[in-house]
């Protein structure tokens, strides 16, 4: 286990030597090995190309909006009885979205309604370019928002890692001109092995020499492609068995999700991935209710994401806590259906954020569907800038705060809360009192963004070994301390390990805070007044 080499530990010099240890995040940042697995977060962006009809994805169940909806969509409306109701909210999900509905009910799916771009354009190509290059109504930058994110995020990708991957035949505009992103469409043919065996290695080496001669885009991409060939041929094939019971859709989208699951499980340093799902430009024959083209498309999306999510929970490791999947589309569609049982280009859309760190539920302000509430009297309005959601992802998951660089001219960011807020890490003090050991820390009331957070409990672990990560070892806490409901920030919380110092031995402790949404803080690092020495 490589944990030891990456972490520093404090050893407390007293009869009952006591130490706490750094949280895993600390370890990966400071000792950042080229393969920082298994600690890093992974962000997956799924683009629904064509302008997905969000009003038939998240549909009003009741009230005035339901009546407007039924008026506007006599052919396309989804009957109330068929919708999958979202808790007490007056909305339901399309009946084809059973898999995502199940995840929603576990609290791992956040839906940002009426989200999108504050641009007037109804052009697919403008809208996709604006969105993916992260610059609505601006002169288009030559790079994409993901290009700029991975350029500035505090991680580095080794040449032996698949850090940023587009599961496509070409890079999407969000990765435009990124020398660090790899386009990968399938594993099995991702090699140079079409010629006779004898000169393969020499040929590949000579092609590499050719591309290493220069620094133009073509040269750089050529070398990156050859690096990717080495990683893929060493690690992957399309012959893959998902976890028991998991069935991916039998199409290109399903294949790409399956590849993604393999890349995540192989732990080759993935940080960012993109997958496209096209076919949402439903001007005609969209199909109403729970049948037809649109329903089939949603089924593919929902079943695919559901399969991936289930597949990431393996018997050895639950990867869901580190993976966040965001879906987006360039715009929504016209509120009123057209005469061809379809919908024309609209305005407001939605984003979904799925993952173990997602703050499940509905987010964003619902603008209403009365004509006066519609954008230009025709389309769902936008109340949440899509950049706000994406900014939260890269800040909270990658600690990348360069929002003004990733999204030029975007101002006024504040987190919407689609990612569960992470409580601040407790700062512990430790002392020996007779034969007892006392661990003390201040009550946590803020998350790492400085917002209020409610703590459900503190978990405390003890080990006789200084080299312990309770999470990786699967240890049960020796104590869970529930703070009083009226505790203020900084109020001392004390854990007493009674009688433990009566016998000679070394004990090591760590503490973490657990929020009411089960979101966990980092592991506390002891900083008390005891003398200590650093051991590695």
């Amino acid at each position, binding site marked *: 286990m490589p944990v030891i080499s990456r972490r520093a530990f404090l050893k407390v010099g007293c009869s009952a030597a006591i130490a706490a240890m750094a949280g895993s995040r600390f370890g990966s940042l400071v000792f950042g090995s080229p393969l920082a697995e298994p600690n890093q977060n992974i962000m997956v962006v799924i683009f629904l190309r064509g302008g997905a009809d969000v009003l038939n994805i998240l549909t009003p169940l009741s009230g005035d909006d339901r009546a407007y909806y039924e008026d506007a969509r006599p052919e396309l409306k989804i009957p109330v009885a068929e919708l999958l109701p979202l808790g007490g909210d007056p909305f339901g999900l399309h009946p084809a979205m059973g898999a995502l509905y199940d995840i929603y009910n576990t609290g791992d799916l956040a839906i940002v309604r009426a989200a999108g771009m504050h641009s007037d354009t109804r052009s697919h190509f403008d809208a996709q370019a604006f969105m993916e290059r992260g610059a609505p109504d601006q002169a288009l930058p030559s790079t994409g928002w993901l290009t700029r994110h991975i350029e500035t995020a505090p991680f580095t990708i080794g040449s032996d890692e698949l850090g940023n991957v587009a599961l496509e035949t070409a890079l999407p505009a969000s990765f435009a001109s990124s020398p660090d992103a790899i386009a990968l*469409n399938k594993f099995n043919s*991702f090699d140079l092995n*079409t010629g006779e065996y004898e000169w393969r290695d020499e040929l590949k080496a000579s092609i590499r020499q*050719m591309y290493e001669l220069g620094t133009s885009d073509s040269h750089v991409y050529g070398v990156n492609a050859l690096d990717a060939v080495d990683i893929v041929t060493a690690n992957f094939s399309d012959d893959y068995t998902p976890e028991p019971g998991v069935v991916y859709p039998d199409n290109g989208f399903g294949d790409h999700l399956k590849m993604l699951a393999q890349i995540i499980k192989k732990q080759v340093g993935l940080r960012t991935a993109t997958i496209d799902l096209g076919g949402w430009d439903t001007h005609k024959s969209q199909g109403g209710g729970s049948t037809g083209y649109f329903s089939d498309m949603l089924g593919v999306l929902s079943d695919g994401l559901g399969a991936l999510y289930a597949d990431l929970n393996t018997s050895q490791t639950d990867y869901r806590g580190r993976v966040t999947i965001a879906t987006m589309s360039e715009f929504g569609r016209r509120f009123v259906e057209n005469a061809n049982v379809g919908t024309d280009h609209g305005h407001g859309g939605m984003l979904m954020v799925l993952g173990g760190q997602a703050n499940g539920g509905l987010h964003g302000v619902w603008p209403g569907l009365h004509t006066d509430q519609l954008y230009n009297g025709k389309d769902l309005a936008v109340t949440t800038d899509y950049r706000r959601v994406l900014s939260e992802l890269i800040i909270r998951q990658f600690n990348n705060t360069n929002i003004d660089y990733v999204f030029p001219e975007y101002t006024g960011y504040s987190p919407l809360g689609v990612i569960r807020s992470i409580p601040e890490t407790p700062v512990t003090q430790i002392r020996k009192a007779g034969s007892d050991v006392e661990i003390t820390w201040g009550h946590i009331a803020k998350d790492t963004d400085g917002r209020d957070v409610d703590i459900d409990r503190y978990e405390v672990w003890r080990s006789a070994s200084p080299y312990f990560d309770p999470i990786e070892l699967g240890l049960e806490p020796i104590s869970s301390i529930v703070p009083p409901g009226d505790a203020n920030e900084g109020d001392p919380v004390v854990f007493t390990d009674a009688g433990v110092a009566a016998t000679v031995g070394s004990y090591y402790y760590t503490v973490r805070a657990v929020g009411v949404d089960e979101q966990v803080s980092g592991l506390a690092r002891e900083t008390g007044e005891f003398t200590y020495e650093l051991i590695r």
Partner: protein
Amino acid sequence: MSGSVSELSRREFLSIFNGAGLGTRRDGVHSNELERSVLRMVWGAKVIESVPPIPVIALNRMGFGPRPGDFEAFAALGDDDLTRLNNYIEQQLHPGSINDSDLESRITAEEYPTKDKTRQELWQEHHRSDVGEERRRPYQDVKRLKFLRALYSKRQLYELLTEFWHDHFNVDAGSNVIRSMIMYYDRDVIRPYVLSNFRMLLEAVATSTCMLDYLDNYVNKKTGPNENWARELLELHTLGQDHYYGSIPQEDVPGFPDAPEGYVEADVFAVTRCFTGWSFNYKESEGDTGEFLYRANWHDNGSKLVLGQTLPADQDINDPMKDGQDVLDLVASHPGTAKHISYKLCRRLIGDEPPESLVSSAADIFLANVSEPDQIAQVVRHILQSEAFRTTWNEKFKRPFEVIASAMRGVDADVEFVYDGSWTNKFFWHFNNIGQPPFYWEPPDGYPDVGAYWRSSNSFVMRWRHLIWLVDDKAAATPADLTADVVNQTPADRRSPNALADYWIERLFGYEIPGAERQIVVDFMAQGADPDVDLPLDSDESLQSRLRNMVALILSSELFQQR
């Protein structure tokens, strides 16, 4: 100068450039191009021209690369390169005057049963067929013909521009109707107008079964307008995104009403209304022919305001299709369209960022000739005769079709695309993996024509795979089974690694490549042996395989991806 290139300042580039005595005028060439050219000279063991000779540029950018004999034919066109270039341009602008018997006999030799079927026959016998293979057959024939023509037609510019207009007026053969009707679309809608008149081309497209289906106008009616076609007509086919003003009122567009500079949402809706009733015959009660059908009773006869012009009410009643035709007149003669089309043609023929001044002067030619039957040829001539055309190189990264076609032309591949043949199927499997399956781009903007899109890792790996397969297929039982037998094509007096490398470099590039790249080719062929000593190529199968891979190396090099 083998030191780190990145350490050189721009000033140093330029001093090297001038010191080499190559300080020619380079009007209109992007500054990055200048720097790249100089870099090339620095890397090489010796200084070369910063752009390849004119014949190389002409054969690579007015077509799909040189075949053996092409340079000789070009040389026979006059006494100096400029004269030869102008003569070549004129020849290529008159494709009907070029003898294309080689291609024609190749087409005759194979089976293309849907090649001459009428629109109605394709509709009834293929689109309406119960047999899946029959429904797909027209597409299978068109895609094979596309390759055959690029490889063997002497009307190279015509083929290149046919592809240009297919991209511009993209339809997706992955869809139900189009896979059966694409043969008609290629033959009757695009090809007759490739060098002809834009307005005529536009109406052929607007009334085609394929576009009417693809962008849904065939169901666009007064009681249920569908704006898909109207929007893309303005945004992609004519005025372009640069002339879209969003949702502001029509009268707020600069130049309104006499000459509005662009269009707004209200224009999209007005144009939608103008094309209500433009449909095709798809109902059994009408005969189900797939032919164009104007449905007068679907037409919205109210008056419309389009690009500042009022189209009076009821004009379609006495003059069917008048509203739509008026729109086509308006957009085809709009300066925004002239700019948009000229820009795209310049980008196709010169570089990803063509000089503004050339786009502008080409747009003037476009506008001055809106009614001429050779309007497009005149614009193309203007672009090809520009200084930018002959002084620009490596501003285009070959798309998959271009790299495979140019490689096959370079190695003189003599192939038949036998329908459902095992070689043909393997060929297209490899080719489609690169990311440009013919006529299969789903959204209506056509395959991208900028290098940034095509320089992805997948595109590189899959093009390398296909290129290697062309000359050294591991499944080939004998060299004769290969797509091209490069060993047999190598002259008997070229046997040393140096001589073998130089023969194939000269043949595939037509110019001297930088020394560093050449050395890699020589070293590969020599594998440690003395590069001046002849190899026993004729008796050693391993050496023959090595030579095939040497050719694959040249085809896979970064230099071969440039146009």
